């Protein structure tokens, strides 16, 4: 009798970084369950940091000792290829940095379940200590972020998506100040996230109906021989696209971003604005590249419109924002649009486009570090009732705290893409790659790509306005008499800002080493 089911083979070595993070998360849950309250933080913080650092070390070992594998692992469910390893490395460093921010006292509520303003809450506050559950939650989210872009079939990708998102929904509601806003953001994020997940799942089902498989290369193979105009395929693809574009916050699926970014505790916002974006962008790239590579002429005009709309909506709406976190959220939307330009470039017919893939990876790296640095600074500018979110409170900050305002101004300039900051080279790489792919293809596509890049430059100019406006506000306005206080930063926060500033300056002055790394990662391309 044949065995009914074969035991799956799991390549533990290749998957070690992800398994380490998940393992540590499970261990964290056990700590929450069994360790006494006063010991939890002491145990959770080192556990989290060591596991993230260890996972990063494992990624390095993998890259140096063995190079990226060329076969999908875990029965074809996960592909740990060059881009995936690069994205893992970036996510691990970013989450390590974000944990340092999380670790700072005072961001998280003592008891999330208590009704805001109730006696229960006061009691929990008096008892002291925050939620230490935040650490295992964060580790689960990071594990999901690693699985999401590395998944090689749509179901695994969906699991990654949910493992990443569920802890984030929770963590959004844990802000200590402005509880209602925080809970509202959590609720919204959860509802809309569930909605978009449904789209993703529906798209997966449709594609399964078309191709008879959920594996990405399998779908691509079916495309090569099958009918390209099958409604099943097109609808499935559109639904899948909605789910993915929601996660990167592309228009018209961006509405959640400002509300959630504003309400969530700022360290979590930093994690979402950097780690989630990197992971989701990686997943977008993999789906379009591996799963739908043979469909490219169909989705191009639609994607073109999405990229254009995203840039415009992000840049234009940011102008009238009055809250610093909302402004950064819209800025993040605009940057997602710039990244989508790169995505357009990556799927050129010639397929000789490791260059544009590396440009996107590079952009992700530089943008996410600058973002974390900017949010870290936001955590430090405080009013009696919490962070000073309203932009008017930032007036004259340059006179009260020149160093802080100077670094923030520098980050803003990097967002705007001013030369000698990393942001300049990020934009330059993506735009140049887009132009190159346009001119390579030679047909009418070239003109469309050029048009998109022009639109990107115009959107950058509009975006520069609101970045510079904050700088003007900080340095050329009189400070308010009862202006916000600058919190004495913990070592962790200082380290975060320093790392972000170093990356922004360093890559701005010497982009080549980082470009080389990105290029190396992209040279292997995705496993197909």
């Amino acid at each position, binding site marked *: 009798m044949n065995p009914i089911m074969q035991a799956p083979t799991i390549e533990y070595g290749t998957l070690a970084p992800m398994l380490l993070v998940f393992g540590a998360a499970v261990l964290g849950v056990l700590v929450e369950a069994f360790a006494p309250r006063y010991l939890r933080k002491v145990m959770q913080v080192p556990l989290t940091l060591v596991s993230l650092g260890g996972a990063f070390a494992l990624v390095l070992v993998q890259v140096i000792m063995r190079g990226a594998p060329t076969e999908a692992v875990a029965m074809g469910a996960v592909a740990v290829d060059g881009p995936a390893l690069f994205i893992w490395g970036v996510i691990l460093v970013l989450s390590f940095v974000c944990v340092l921010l999380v670790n700072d006292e005072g961001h998280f509520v003592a008891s999330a379940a208590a009704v805001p303003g109730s006696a229960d809450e006061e009691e929990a506050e008096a008892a002291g200590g925050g939620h230490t559950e935040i650490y295992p939650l964060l580790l689960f989210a990071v594990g999901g972020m690693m699985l999401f872009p590395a998944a090689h079939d749509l179901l695994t990708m969906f699991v990654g998506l949910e493992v990443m998102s569920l802890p984030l929904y929770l963590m959004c509601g844990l802000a200590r100040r402005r509880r209602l806003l925080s809970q509202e953001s959590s*609720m*919204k994020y959860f*509802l*809309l996230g569930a*909605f*978009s997940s449904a*789209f993703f799942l529906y798209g997966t089902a449709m594609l399964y109906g078309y191709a008879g498989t959920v594996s990405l290369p399998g779908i691509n193979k079916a495309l090569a021989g099958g009918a*390209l*105009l099958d*409604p099943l395929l*097109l*609808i499935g*693809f*559109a*639904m899948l*696209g*909605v789910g993915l574009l*929601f996660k990167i916050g592309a*228009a*018209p*699926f961006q*509405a*959640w971003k*400002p*509300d959630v970014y504003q309400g969530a505790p700022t360290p979590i916002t930093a994690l979402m604005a950097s780690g989630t974006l990197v992971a989701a962008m990686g997943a977008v790239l993999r789906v379009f590249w591996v799963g739908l590579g043979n469909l490219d002429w*169909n*989705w191009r*005009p*639609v994607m073109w*419109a*999405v990229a254009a709309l995203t840039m415009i*909506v992000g840049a*234009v*709406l*940011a*102008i*009238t924002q009055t809250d610093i976190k909302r402004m950064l959220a819209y800025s993040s939307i605009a940057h997602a649009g710039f990244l989508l330009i790169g995505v357009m470039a990556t799927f050129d017919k010639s397929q000789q486009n490791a260059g544009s893939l590396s440009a996107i990876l590079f952009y992700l790296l530089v943008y996410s570090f600058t973002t974390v640095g900017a949010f870290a600074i936001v955590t430090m500018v405080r009013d009696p009732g919490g962070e000073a979110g309203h932009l008017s409170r930032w007036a004259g900050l340059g006179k009260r705290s020149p*160093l802080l305002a100077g670094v923030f101004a520098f980050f803003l300039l990097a967002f705007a893409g001013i030369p000698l900051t990393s942001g300049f080279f990020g934009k*330059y*790489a993506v735009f140049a790659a887009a132009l190159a792919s346009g001119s390579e293809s030679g047909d009418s596509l070239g003109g469309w790509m050029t048009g998109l890049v022009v639109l990107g430059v115009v959107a950058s100019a*509009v975006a520069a306005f609101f970045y510079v406006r904050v700088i003007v506000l900080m340095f050329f306005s009189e400070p308010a008499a009862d202006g916000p206080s600058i919190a004495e930063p913990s070592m962790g926060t200082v380290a975060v800002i320093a790392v972000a500033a170093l990356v922004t300056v360093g890559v701005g002055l*010497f*982009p*080549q*080493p980082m*470009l080389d790394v990105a290029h190396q990662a992209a040279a292997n391309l995705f496993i197909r």
Partner: protein
Amino acid sequence: MESPVEIVQHTAGGVIGVSWLMIAFPLLGAAILLILGRKTDRWGHLLGVAMSLASFVVAVLAFFELLGLSAEQRRQAVHLYEFIPGMADMGLLIDPLSISFALLITGVGSLIHIYSIGYMSHDPDRRRFFSYLNLFVAAMLLLVLADNYLGLFIGWEGVGLASYLLIGFWQFKPSAAVAAKKAFVVNRVGDFGLLVGMFIMWSATGTFAFAELSEKAGGLSQPMVTAIGLLLLLGACGKSAQLPLQSWLLDAMEGPTPVSALIHAATMVTAGVYLVVRSGAFFFPEGSPQALAVAIVGAATLLAGAIIGCAKDDIKKGLAGSTMSQIGYMMLGAGLGPAGYAFAIGHLITHGFFKADMFLGAGSVMHGMNDEVDMRKYGALRKYMPITFVTFMVGYLAIIGFPLLSGYFTKDGIIETAVEHNQVLGWLAVIGAGITGFYMSRMIFMTFFGEKRWAEDAHPHESPTVMTVPLIILSIGSIFLGGYLILSNRLMLWLAPAVGRPEELPQFHFASTPGLATLALVAVGAAYAWMKYGRAEVPAVQPRGSFLTTFARRDLYGDALNESLFMRPGQWLTRIAVFFDNRGIDGVVNGLAAGIGGTSGRLRRIQTGFARTYALSILIGAALLTGALLLVGNI
């Protein structure tokens, strides 16, 4: 004529391989002092000095390593990293020209750092001062060491920034703030020229690198080369305070005196000369119109600067006029092709020593006289400040070209080469030397001789050792350096791999016609100064003076000229532009801005805050996406 040797890629390790340390040390110093801020107040100045000295040590070691190579190997390009992919690499060029500059910048720079410890000891912001000085040294080294125009330009702007910050160091004085702004704005005109020159260079050759330009520049058309050359000259005029962009230098004396010595006498203002000599092989071929333009600008400025120097009562402004004039000599030399390069660079180096010597001497005098700068309130100081007096005298004798001192050899070299190439410019330079003899003697007599004309609370005293030792070292250089460099053509042979040299080596004549004429005119000038300011009494209040004196006092009406030629018409132009701008362009731009803002405001209302609205927008988006895909698929 022999052309420069080819640039070779540096492969072996050694000090040349790590020559970037020269830039890194002071840059690190500046970064530490600026970032850590007040925490470094106690030891900041020492760090600044240490970083500058470390840079000097690297320069010396690299110099000796270069000396050990054969002449064909003496242009070493050190590749650092790819700067803008596909456009420019960042690298350093270590060759005799750049290393000579590096030695001057770090050597004199270190001495001035040390001097500043004493000079700025009472200033609460001494640490900030040293951070800017370090920043300057780093930028200046990048300017001269970069192996391409892009790196040079970054250094060029870096020194401009440092100069701005240091001129306005005492920004609480309105005059200092205005002077800093003026220097910045005037330099912008020059930088614009340099930038446009680089644009043309790039579009014509596709490269900024010296190594590639030496191959490709030969293929350019004549008008193209002339255009680039003239635009680079405009840049050089701005940085080196040459006519017509000279007006900022005199005002720049508002900065602390060590700054005037380092930046506005010894190093930064000579960057223009460096630019011309470095570009010589590509854009200033011998006998070309643009090379002639360089020489003419030099000759005109050397006269203008000398005339201005005659009428100034402010000791630092007198020296500033003299700096303009001396850089004019260098420019003149640089416009004469390879025959003049060695003398121009030689004069640049010796000038770096004797002018820094005199500026620091002036600073020492001011230090003892409660920061008084008016020479009419000095007099008879030689007895009270003996070391300052002797060192200043050495600098004085060097600059007027007293036989066998440094300035004698280098200036005479320029004058003789100029007379050989172009009689008119050559003899103008001779006349300029005579005027130099007058105004420098005037300065000496007014300051150190004659009667006391001090303010009542003045108690002149010699400066501390930390200030006098640099003076002594600089004056030793002012005595011997010129002869060492020029006799037996040491400097010319040393620089030949980098800038080329004439086929026939010049012979130094001690008794040539122009040389003797120069000496005679200098003697006349000095004697006239003795009659007017040595023997006769110096009025403590400035007399009205003749038309010519006023002309010189008002900087040859340079500012007035700028105002009536550029500022007023510029203002009118602006008004007209504003008029049309308000009616036409602004309407469009404001309309656009208002449109974007209005759109933003309207779009913002879609962001209602209700999850149901957001979900609806997602649904509509999904429907659109699906519809569009189906539509596109079926076309």
